[in-house]
């Protein structure tokens, strides 16, 4: 093979290596830029979803979407414009290595049908200057600086989650609403008027989308309505879902709030009266993390049972088997005994039953009427502390759900825990939040006064 061919092949190979590296850098840069914008927009949406009004969130949602699409289009155009072929790579290498257009001329030589007489000289000169245009020298292997933009945007996104309101007593109704089991949230959002810090926003959301949006967001709730248990309460479920941009925006905002508030409330709180040196039964933490998922799994079976008033198989099949202490479902059910109750209970929020305390809105509204604090914190496991009180309440089996009664929160517990469950260390060691005790005392003192 002639020397010029070998030399040209070497030059060409090195040019291709430079080209690959430069093009990949361009693509990485575009990808980082293209990812940064949606992440930043996401952070903005989280902040607005938690603190902003619905119109502002809607505007931000669509503007951010358009901005993200625009960024991607711009990034694509940037890549298209900066994409280098061999000739352009040669020009760039010529410029960076100060090769006085030798590489460009060589790149053009490849396309000529007849080799030029001086081509071997050019090849020899170019290869002699090879140290000047090493691949690492022309196109160093480095991550584009735009990666810092992406990292910064990810940090902003992470920081935006810190802006979620702390579950302070003043804001507990919101948190409780958001953190409560899905069915509770869906039910109470229809029956109880919006209150607390979410008042205007939630009210607008409810006006715009109504119960339909909740049932769409929450599949379990939709199943409830389809089974007929909540037909009277969710009339909109029979219609078509509202897919207007405003409804989509509202649904997304509520989903953000639910997600962040659920996470905030489910965090184990430090209790001042803890006597176990801060240690906590891991089972409780696991149960809390599982609680929402478990409830959503069980909800579809419950309404049918309540609607007919005679079929208790569904509820019974969910009960834990006492002979299997390690049964995970048993522990989960112990955390949420209200999910196993048959029949209906008095309307939530009337204060007549401790079961009504499971509905934080109802409890809040009751306490509100008495000038009590508007908020409280209710964790899933803390409910177990009221097991003894619940068992003393008269059962109300077979009672149909009235249009005024929440579907799930009205469930009573005929035999929430058996002996083995009551002796379970995890349950016995469960802490009762002081706020919960205060609420219970207030509610029952009001009841006694009446």
């Amino acid at each position: 093979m002639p020397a010029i061919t070998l030399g040209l092949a070497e030059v060409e190979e090195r040019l291709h290596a430079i080209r690959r590296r430069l093009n990949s850098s361009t693509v990485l840069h575009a990808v980082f830029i293209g990812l940064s914008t949606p992440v930043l927009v996401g952070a903005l949406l989280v902040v607005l979803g938690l603190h902003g009004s619905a119109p502002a969130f809607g505007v931000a949602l669509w503007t951010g979407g358009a901005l993200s699409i625009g960024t991607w289009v711009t990034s694509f155009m940037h890549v298209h414009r900066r994409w280098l072929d061999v000739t352009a790579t040669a020009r760039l290498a010529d410029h960076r290595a100060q090769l006085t257009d030798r590489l460009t001329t060589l790149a053009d030589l490849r396309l000529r049908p007849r080799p030029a007489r001086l081509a071997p000289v050019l090849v020899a000169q170019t290869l002699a200057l090879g140290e000047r245009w090493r691949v690492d020298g022309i196109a160093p292997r480095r991550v584009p600086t735009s990666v810092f933009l992406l990292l910064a945007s990810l940090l902003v996104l992470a920081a935006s989650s810190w802006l979620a309101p702390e579950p302070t007593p003043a804001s507990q109704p919101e948190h409780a609403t958001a953190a409560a089991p899905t069915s509770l949230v869906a039910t109470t959002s229809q029956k109880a008027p919006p209150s607390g810090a979410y008042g205007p926003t939630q009210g607008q959301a409810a006006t715009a989308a109504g119960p339909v949006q909740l049932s769409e967001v929450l599949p379990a709730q939709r199943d409830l309505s389809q089974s007929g248990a909540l037909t009277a309460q969710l009339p909109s479920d029979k219609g078509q879902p509202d897919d207007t941009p405003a409804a989509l925006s509202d649904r997304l905002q509520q989903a953000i709030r639910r997600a962040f508030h659920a996470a905030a409330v489910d965090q184990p709180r430090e209790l001042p009266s803890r006597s176990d040196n801060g240690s906590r039964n891991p089972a409780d933490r696991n149960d809390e993390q599982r609680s929402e998922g478990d409830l959503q799994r069980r909800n579809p079976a419950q309404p049918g049972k309540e609607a007919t008033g005679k079929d208790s198989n569904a509820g019974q099949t969910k009960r834990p088997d006492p002979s299997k202490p390690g049964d995970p479902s048993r522990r989960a059910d112990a955390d949420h005994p209200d999910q196993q109750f048959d029949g209906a209970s008095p309307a939530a929020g009337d204060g007549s039953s401790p079961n009504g305390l499971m509905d934080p809105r109802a409890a809040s509204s009751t306490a509100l009427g008495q000038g009590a604090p508007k908020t409280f914190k209710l964790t899933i496991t803390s409910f177990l502390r009221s097991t003894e009180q619940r068992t003393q309440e008269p059962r109300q089996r077979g009672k149909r759900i009235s249009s005024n009664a929440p579907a799930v929160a009205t469930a009573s517990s005929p035999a929430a825990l058996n002996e083995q469950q009551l002796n379970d260390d995890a349950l016995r060691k469960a802490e009762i939040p002081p706020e919960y005790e205060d609420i219970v005392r207030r509610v029952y003192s009001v009841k006694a006064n009446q």
Partner: protein
Amino acid sequence: MSPETPQRAVREFQDVFQRLRDQLHRVIVGHRDMLDQILVAFFAGGHVLIEGVPGTGKTLIVRTLGEALNLSFNRVQFTVDLMPADITGTRMVMDQDGRREFTFVPGPLFSHVLLADEINRATPKTQSALLEAMAELQVTVAGTTYRLTPPFFVLATLNPIEMEGTYPLPEAQLDRFFFKVVLTYPEHRDMQLILSGTTGTRLPVVAPVFARDDAAARIEELRALVREVLVAPHLEEYAAAIVRATLPSDSKFAPRGATLLPTDEQISRYVSFGSSPRGGQALLLGAKVGALLDGRVNVSYDDIDAVTVPALNHRLVLNFAAIADGIDSRSLIERILHGARRLRH
């Protein structure tokens, strides 16, 4: 092909050029850049128009170059009564073997190096007699065409003063010149050297670079080497863009297509006619010589830029507005070059 042979040719070119430069500098003091431009034009196969005030060594440069090249050299002093036949040659009745017949007697054009001194003093008719010889290396007399022996190199001088009784060169004539070199008065130090070197008893002697027998052949080889220098397409595009930028936008001869460089406002204002494609040829050929002098076999942007002013400044025909505003073509070309830098990378 082994790269040694062309590499040796490149080195020989550099060597010849340097020796010529040295010989010229033995006689000519100063004017280094101008001498280099003259040599570049010579090896590129062009002709040079030297403009300068009297007494700056124009004639000396041409004569020295002819002696250094060891080529045939003729000088024609252009005057107002000079006729075309005086430079091209004419048919004369000659008595040969008792028979009288017309025989062509070559004029001073038939040499390798021709000095056309004060070319603007001759009538346009005589000036035009040079056109065919400069462009096509041939002379037609009485219907018969006679070929000139290459290399043929015309060095014309132009006196910018004493304009009375002169005939400015027509644009077509100017376009035939590869470069226009402007000789200025020497610097103080150079003036002192000129005085000391030319008023003594020992005058500098020029040693020929080539042997007389093979001088023409070797020069032709070197000229052929110049044409083999490689030019990348984007550099040809760059040169074309520069030439195109010299055309005023409102000229009826300007092309209507898109241009790489926007037309400069001053070009449209002060230029009546821009450069012809010959200007582009001069750019690239001059750049090729520059590349060889730098030891390269490919043209670069800097090579083109280095020859742009001498290659184009006599091809821009300025209007009265430019004369009134004191604008010269050199400043306009430098503006074009400044704008063309964005095309580089």
